[in-house]
């Protein structure tokens, strides 16, 4: 086995293992930490693909941003002695069934997809290309979605401020 493959299986194994832990843990903060590990391992996959920009975005936004916010809200709301109750058996079964179904669909589509092996060297993603593409208004440009998302975020922020103000 090559080192590359070893690395991939290691990361994939980490992601699978901690995903299962994250949903089965009965302590909420531990679940958040397992989720963090999953996200960091995912960014490791991006690093393997030489897509460093995506990897750094994954680290900043998900690991550094969203998980910190999740942990922060857990800190404010829950106590250390709090534990989730064991879910009802029917729920466990329904959840497992949905999980297996989703997994099956994913595996099926991966098997069905005609992957073509190339001998070309790995593509180096130039940051300038990413930048111009993001701000491009022409074909395949991301300027419009970018702006629409910013409006959405603005709306969310205003809503948050209004909710926070209501207390006073």
């Amino acid at each position, binding site marked *: 086995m090559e*080192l590359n493959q070893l690395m991939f299986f290691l990361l994939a194994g980490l992601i699978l293992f901690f995903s299962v832990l994250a949903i089965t843990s009965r302590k909420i903060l531990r679940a958040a930490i397992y989720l963090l590990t999953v996200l960091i391992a995912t960014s490791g996959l991006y690093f393997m693909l030489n897509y460093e920009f995506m990897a750094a975005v994954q680290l900043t936004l998900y690991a550094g941003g969203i998980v*910190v916010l999740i942990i*922060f809200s857990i*800190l404010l709301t829950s106590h250390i002695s709090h534990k989730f109750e064991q879910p009802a058996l029917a729920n466990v079964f329904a959840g497992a069934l949905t999980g297996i179904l989703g997994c099956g669909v994913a595996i099926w589509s991966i098997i069905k997809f005609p992957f073509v092996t190339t001998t070309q060297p790995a593509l180096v993603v130039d940051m300038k290309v990413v930048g111009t593409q993001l701000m491009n208004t022409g074909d395949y440009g991301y300027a419009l979605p970018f702006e629409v998302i910013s409006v959405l975020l603005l709306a969310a922020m205003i809503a948050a401020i209004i909710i926070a103000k209501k207390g006073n």
Partner: protein
Amino acid sequence: MDFNIYDFTSFTTWVHNALTSSMSPGWAMFVELAIVGVVFIAFYAVIGLYLVYAERKVCALIQNRKGPNRVGPFGLLQTIADLFKLLMKELIYIKNADKFLFNLAPFIVIIASFMAIAALPFAKGLHAIDLNIGIFYLFAVSSLGVIGILLAGWSSNSKYSLIGAIRSGAQVVSYELSVGLALLSIVIFSGSMQLSTIVESQANGWWIIKGHIPAIISFLIFLVASTAETNRGPFDLAEAESELTAGFHTEYSGIKFAFFFLAEYMNMFIVAAIAATVFLGGWMPFHIPGLDGMNHVMDYIPPFVWFMGKTAFIIFIMMWFKWTFPRLRIDQLLKLEWKYLLPLNLMNIVLIAFIVLMGWYIK
């Protein structure tokens, strides 16, 4: 082999070639990783310990004292003795604490600082990995350390720790913005996020000089915001000893406490190194165009010394802050960021974009 302290490229290629010729590429890579890891751990330990020593000496200087001067010449071995003391200390277990997270927290803090140190260019050709998004990566990794602090505060099951952790969370999340935006200004100037390119672009002058007013503003903002992000005085609210006894690490003892302690100093080193790299030219010597004689003398000083010298200078400024200013209050801290630093930063970035567009900086 051609070993040259002014350019490590030939040395690193020699090591790489020697390894690949004697074993399979996979193993060669593995050995390289191991070497880099060992070097970094050793470097980390030495820098961490001697920053503690430096802080004690600087603080003694400011406070009309002598500082450590008993163990070894000038007290140089004092912090090593302290390390042994901390290693031997009993690890106190807290009843009702979440043991797993309680033990995990110091490691998260220290791993985050390890990840950041990997991307720093110490001298020409001397860096572990030269990512093409170097600055972005540093910014991303530096935001992970706070998770360790939050965990430490919550899992100790102590109210003081929890308040410290919440303070630190609010503080780091806010000040990250200013740090990122201040670094962005130099990205605009140099047109690259790769640290080696940024350093190369300062061969004819550091950005703080070439970028004049807006670069100086960014530098000052970066200095303030990064001091806050590393939880150092006057922004050390997370561990404010007069209010929260020790904040998030109140319940830690022995080597686990030492991890937090070491990580704090390493974070200080990392932000100082980033500032030195981005604003003060990294390992580039100080050059004044036209004065060839002086420039040659400056070139004679090895790049590694330049880098460490600049870093030490910024660390000194940060220590100077800490030992002269009183601590801010939490609302003042957040007000400073959201009402003053952030708007100033955004305006500064617009200004920089304009200056770069017009070409009004020193090329």
